[in-house]
């Protein structure tokens, strides 16, 4: 297929010149033929990457015009409604970017939309990685880097939208300061050092500016680079499919396919952000007015990614503890610390917890289908519901207004749901996963329903089932179940007690391990479900016997897994 064509003189000349000096041909050959597996969900991280690139481009433009100063000035400019109003230079320069710099408003809006898209894409990308188990060995470090990126993104976003010193973001900054003050022992000092004295002071905008344009982007850039290099070095995971094994990677080469697709994807994302910015207004700071500590507007909401902190502050009852001349403000501390610790800390620990629970130290390059890991998927959904309740509560006033439910009722619903919701989500998801596994087992055993009804000579009607083809079979059979550990108290052949025998922790480990090892076995005898229409959707109890707890089948081969040997 290689049509022979002449490489242009200029190109080969430059290439030769570079190779003379850098020995690049070998490295670039590897790069050009690097295989990238294809799946729609692998593009989610790319959205975050390209949003970041767009943030750097538009942010650089904005920094040419933005004045990070809190010096008070009186405005006389293009936005005549604010003429004669006292404001900071930061706010004034943001007005100037919006109304006096051609393309300035567009750049501001692209920057803001891109920040929202960056955080949204990160969130969804992390969900994809979690639910498919792509964080498993050897990719734990990249998972942790991802969590660091997300956490830094939160602060970067908060500081970014606070820079214009407008009424809305100023209120947010005041809340941030109030929360800082609530930290025991060092809180007041932290707040005074960050703000250079009492709120608002004159230092916070320039300080946030340098953190926003230099410090955090620098760290983000370094972490993103590391993230990509590690991904490149370890090679991407792939979805279960025919021909995909733990030892290979199937897909299209970087040059030209991934290059072209990635380029097209960049253009599409950029186009979407630009068109959004042309037609959908975001953060119209001129409508909010300059910050004043004595004013506030109702339905003040932060950007969506801060919503869970806002929601947890709104949900919390007024708990406070005064003792020995000190105040411990739980109504601030718990909302500030607990949700993020539960979600981000939990996410960070999860891969190691899972390894502990399953005893699985092998390499994983084929992703799990979420249904095949019911506990993980259940926990993931519980986290999603936990996040979702907090997030919705962050807009409780808007919900109360739109749904015409009393405000306090909504808050009370949220206070209950935050505990009940995740548990329900876990139970329902786990059951659903097992149900889907049962369906897979059924499909493997009897084939799929074709929808064709045939009448037999004796008058009976049957539905024609067809066996799954090879591709389908490869997907359905790519199921890996953690091995069940020996029960507490057992010993191996050499009399060494098993990992589950070490006291209370060992018992806990055995219990968690049992949950992880639960699966639906693909049985060959075909009992239960008939061939006819309306296969046995029996009652839940009858189905229970299919869950052969403790008899995991592992059709997928584990070529690695030598670590514990």
């Amino acid at each position: 297929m290689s049509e022979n064509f002449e490489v242009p003189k200029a190109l080969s000349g430059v290439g030769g010149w570079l190779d003379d000096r850098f020995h690049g041909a070998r490295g670039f050959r590897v790069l050009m033929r690097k295989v990238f597996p294809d799946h729609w969900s692998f593009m989610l991280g790319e959205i975050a990457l390209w949003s970041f690139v767009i943030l750097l481009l538009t942010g650089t433009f904005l920094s040419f015009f933005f004045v990070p100063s809190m010096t008070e000035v009186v405005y006389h400019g293009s936005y005549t409604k604010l003429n004669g109003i006292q404001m900071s230079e930061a706010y004034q320069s943001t007005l100037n970017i919006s109304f006096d710099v051609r393309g300035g408003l567009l750049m501001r809006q692209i920057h803001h939309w891109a920040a929202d898209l960056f955080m949204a894409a990160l969130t969804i990308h992390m969900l994809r990685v979690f639910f498919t188990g792509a964080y498993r060995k050897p990719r734990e470090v990249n998972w942790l880097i991802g969590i660091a990126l997300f956490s830094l993104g939160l602060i970067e976003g908060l500081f970014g939208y606070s820079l214009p010193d407008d009424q809305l973001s100023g209120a947010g900054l005041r809340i941030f300061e109030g929360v800082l003050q609530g930290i025991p022992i060092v809180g007041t000092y932290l707040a005074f050092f960050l703000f250079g004295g009492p709120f608002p002071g004159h230092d916070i905008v320039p300080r946030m500016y340098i953190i926003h344009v230099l410090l955090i982007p620098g760290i983000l850039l370094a972490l993103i680079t590391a993230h990509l290099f590690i991904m490149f070095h370890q090679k991407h995971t792939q979805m279960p499919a025919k021909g995909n094994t733990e030892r290979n990677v199937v897909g299209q080469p970087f040059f030209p396919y991934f290059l072209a697709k990635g380029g097209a994807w960049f253009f599409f994302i950029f186009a979407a952000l630009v068109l959004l910015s042309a037609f959908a207004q975001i953060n119209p700071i001129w409508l909010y007015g300059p910050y004043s500590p004595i004013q506030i507007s109702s339905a003040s909401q932060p950007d969506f990614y801060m919503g869970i902190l806002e929601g947890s502050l709104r949900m919390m009852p007024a708990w406070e503890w005064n003792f020995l001349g000190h105040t411990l403000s739980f109504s601030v501390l718990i909302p500030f610390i607990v949700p993020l610790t539960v979600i981000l800390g939990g996410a960070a620990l999860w891969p190691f917890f899972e390894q502990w629970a399953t005893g699985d130290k092998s390499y994983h390059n084929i992703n799990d289908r979420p249904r095949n890991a019911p506990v993980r998927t259940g926990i993931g959904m519980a986290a999603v519901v936990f996040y979702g309740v907090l997030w919705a509560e962050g807009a409780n006033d808007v919900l109360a207004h739109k749904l015409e439910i009393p405000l306090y009722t909504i808050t009370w619903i949220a206070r209950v749901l935050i505990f009940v919701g995740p548990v329900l989500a876990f139970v329902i998801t786990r059951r659903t996963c097992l149900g889907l596994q049962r369906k897979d087992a059924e499909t493997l055993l009897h084939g799929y329903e074709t929808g064709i009804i045939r009448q037999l000579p004796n008058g009976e009607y049957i539905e024609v089932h067809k066996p799954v083809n090879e591709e389908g079979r490869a997907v359905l059979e790519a199921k890996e179940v953690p091995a069940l550990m020996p029960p507490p108290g057992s010993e191996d052949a050499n009399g060494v007690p098993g990992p589950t025998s070490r006291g209370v922790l060992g018992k806990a480990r055995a219990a968690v391990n049992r949950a992880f090892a639960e699966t639906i076995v693909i049985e060959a005898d075909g009992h239960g479900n008939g061939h006819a229409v309306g296969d046995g959707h029996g009652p839940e109890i009858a189905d229970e016997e299919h869950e052969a707890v403790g008899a995991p089948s592992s059709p997928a081969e584990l070529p690695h897994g030598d670590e514990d040997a």
Partner: protein
Amino acid sequence: MSDMEETEGHPGPAAPHRVIGTPPPSPRLLGSTTLAEGGDGEAAEAEGGMHLHGLPQDDPRVIVHANRVEKIVAACFIFAFIAGCGFIAAYIGLGVHTVDKTLRSNLALGTSLGLALAALGLGALLWVRHLMPDVEIVEERHELRSDPKERLAFEEEFKEGAAQSQFVKRPLVRRTLMLGMLPLLAAPIVLLRDLGPLPGTSLRYTVWSPGRRLLVAGTNQPLTPAEFSAPGSMITIVPEGFTDDADALTKAAVILIKFRPGELDIPTMTQGGTLIGTMNWTVDNIVAYSKICTHVGCPVALYEENTHHILCPCHQSTFNAATGATVIFGPAPRPLPQLPMTVDAEGYLVARSDFTQPVGPSFWERG
């Protein structure tokens, strides 16, 4: 029956869901449905090898299709060129400096740039999907873990280097090095000391002092009880002399509420021996509370006349203004502090003193 054959050939586990009578999925012209499904073994063998899926490149149908797509791709790129020129023209041609002009400029710049980018993306996508052959290659993964020999060699070399450094053998060098670096680790934190003044007791006090007049925010005029006679209204008050001082107002902003006779009933409240609320601090059924929410410091701004509820719009802490701003709902841990108030010789509302307790959010030293 032919329907079923088609279904069977369709890849993927999703196959079962096609409803009978609907057309089968049409095979892609360059798609991977027909040729060269070279089995597992073959794929694994041919490390780095290529598998050309679909019809051969010189098949006339492929050539016709490719020639058509080539024109579409070219059209996309030409469209991008035109839109890009439009962007530059809009930049040059459309001015700003008024709201209307700015919005027009934003619309023109955004539309042209967005369409140019979208056309580039679409062109590139069609190009890669319809002009490039559908190539799939299989690459072996390399073992990430180094082989035991390499690990051993590394260990040996590391031990050798460590021995040469004498780091283990000479603890005096090792320990004094650590000691020498210790202060430098603390230095960056010490250097941050001058970021701001120490809080001291500044959070306990505001600029209110005996005799300081209450000025109406906005007009900055003093107020007599008679001028504020309409019951049910709430206004924001700033202290005389600090009307534009954001630092001072962050703590000192006050709301003034007028009640009908008999509606206002503030019990005498004390905290640790200090009086923090009483009817004696009101004037003519006018009461003054701190405007700064005791939760995280938002200005409480919403007042419901019938219920006398003050609502903080940030996190919905609700206070009952008629009974000393006690908390009814929400995360605020205590009532809004009451400002002791009286009238001066000229009949204007003035502060009797500063607040008798710290205003605003909790902090560790508050007690």
